[in-house]
C-alpha cells in the first residue's frame, strides 16, 4: 500500500479539524496509508522564517527527520506547511554546510536529518488517483466554485517546478466531483494571510482578502475551494469580520468527502464561520433527486 507520513499542521489539527478528518476519510477510501508522527508546528514561514531563519530551518528539519527511519515522505494539507518543509528540504539538499549546521543542533536531541525523505503536497498525490476518485464519487455536486491555488504550492516555481501563471490541476480535480471551476478576476492572487501579515498587519491582510472575495462574489460562485488550511482559515474568518460576502469555504478534501457521500457534519462543515447550510440543502436535494 502506498503510504505517507501525515503532517496535518496546526490549523487542520487545532482550528479546522474538519480538514484533518476529511483528509483521513478521503485517503482511507483511496487506499492510501497515513501514519502519524510527533510533529511540531511546521514552523510558520511568515512569522518564523522572517524573524529567525536558522530556527525555522532547524525546526523544519526536525519535522522532516521524524519519518526518515521509515522512509515515508511527509504529506501536507496546508501550503504554508508545504512552503516551509519544501523550502527547508530544498535549501538543505543544495547546501552541505547548512545541513551540517542543522544537524549540529538536531544532534543535541539525538535527531538527524539526512535529506532522504521530502515533503509532498496532497494534491500531488491526488492527481495520480483521478480514476479512483471518479469511481468513488457517489454524488455529482454540480457546484460552481472559485478554486484558490494559493501561493506556496505553485511558487517559487524554481523550487516547486509548477506553472505558476497558468495552473490547471485544481480545475481538473474539482471537475471529478462534478463541480465547475468558474474564472474570476485576478484568480491567482494571494489570500493576504501569509508572510506574517495576517497576524502583524491585520488591516492590510483584510483589504487584500476583501478584494479577492468581491471578485469571487462577482463570479456568482457557490463555494470557495482551497488546498491550504491557512488560506481556508483566512477565507472563513475574514468573511465574518468583513461582512460583505457569504461564500462557503471548503478544503478540497472536504469537497471530495461530500462527493464520496460523507455527511457534512462528519466533515465538520457546521463549525465553519460562514454557514454552509445553503450548500448542504442543495446537496440534499441532489441526493433526493438521484434516488
Amino acid at each position, binding site marked *: 500500500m502506498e503510504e505517507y507520513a501525515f503532517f496535518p499542521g*496546526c*490549523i487542520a*489539527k*487545532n*482550528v479546522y*479539524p*474538519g480538514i*484533518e*478528518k476529511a483528509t483521513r476519510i478521503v485517503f482511507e477510501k483511496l487506499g492510501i496509508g497515513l501514519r*502519524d*508522527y*510527533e*510533529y*511540531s*508546528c*511546521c*514552523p*510558520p*514561514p511568515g*512569522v*518564523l*522564517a*522572517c*524573524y*529567525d531563519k*536558522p*530556527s525555522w530551518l*532547524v*525546526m523544519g528539519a*526536525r519535522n522532516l527527520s521524524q519519518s526518515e527511519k521509515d522512509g515515508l515522505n511527509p504529506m501536507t494539507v496546508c501550503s504554508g506547511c508545504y512552503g516551509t518543509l519544501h523550502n527547508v528540504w530544498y535549501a538543505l539538499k543544495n547546501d552541505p554546510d547548512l545541513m551540517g*549546521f542543522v544537524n549540529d*543542533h538536531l544532534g*543535541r*536531541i*539525538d535527531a538527524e536529518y539526512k535529506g532522504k525523505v521530502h515533503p509532498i503536497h496532497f494534491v500531488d498525490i491526488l492527481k495520480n488517483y483521478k480514476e479512483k476518485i471518479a469511481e468513488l464519487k457517489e454524488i455529482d455536486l454540480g457546484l460552481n466554485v472559485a478554486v484558490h491555488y494559493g*501561493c*506556496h504550492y505553485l*511558487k*517559487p*516555481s524554481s523550487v516547486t517546478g509548477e506553472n*505558476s501563471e497558468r495552473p490547471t490541476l485544481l480545475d481538473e480535480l474539482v471537475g471529478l466531483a462534478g463541480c465547475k471551476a468558474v474564472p474570476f478576476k485576478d484568480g491567482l*492572487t*494571494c489570500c*493576504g*494571510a*501569509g*508572510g*506574517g*501579515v495576517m*497576524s*502583524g498587519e*491585520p488591516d*492590510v491582510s483584510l483589504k*487584500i482578502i476583501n*478584494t479577492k472575495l468581491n471578485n469571487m462574489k462577482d463570479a456568482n460562485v457557490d463555494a470557495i475551494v482551497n488546498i491550504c488550511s491557512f488560506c481556508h482559515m483566512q477565507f472563513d474568518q475574514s468573511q465574518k469580520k468583513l461582512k460583505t460576502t457569504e461564500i462557503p469555504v471548503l478544503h478540497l478534501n472536504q469537497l471530495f468527502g461530500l462527493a464520496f457521500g460523507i455527511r457534512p*457534519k*462528519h*466533515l*465538520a462543515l457546521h*463549525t465553519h464561520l460562514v454557514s454552509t447550510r445553503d450548500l448542504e440543502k442543495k446537496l440534499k436535494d441532489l441526493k433526493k433527486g438521484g434516488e
Partner: protein
Amino acid sequence: MGKSVKEILIDGNGYACIQCGRCTGSCPSGRECSLRTRKLIHMARMGMDVIKTEELWDCTTCFTCQERCPKEVKTTDMIIELRNLAVEEGYFPTMSDVPKIIIKSLYDTGAGQPLSPEVSKIRAIIGLKKEAYDVSTNAETLKKFQRLLDGLEITKKGGLR
C-alpha cells in the same frame, strides 16, 4: 549567520535590478497599502535605512514579484532576509503582538496555533482524538523539543523576555 544588506543584495541578485517596477505592479499587498517592492530594492542599494521601514512587514511572501522579475532578482527571498536583519538589529514590527504570542505558543505547546477547549470538543464529536498526536503528546518529546529551541535562543529573538 546574519547577512549584511550588501550580502543580501548579492545573494538575491539585487544589483541586476533595472528598476522597471514589474514587481510593484504585480504586488497584491502594494495595491492596498504603501508597500512598493521596487522601492525597497532601490533603498537597499542606495544604503538607505531599508530595515527600518514598516512596509517591509506588509509583504505576504506570495512570490509573485520574484516569479515575474525580468532580471531574476530574488525579491521575496531578499525581503525575508531583510526582515531577519531587521529583527537582529532590533527593529521589530510595531503593529501587533501576535507574532510574539505565536512564538510563545510554539515554545510551550509545539503548535503555533494551540488547541482550544471548544475545538477539542469538536474533534471528539467528529470522531477524531480529542487532541491530535504530535510533539506535545509525549512529555519527554516536548521537553526535547524545548531543549532544541533553547539552543537556538528563540525565546530571546522572539522578544519574549
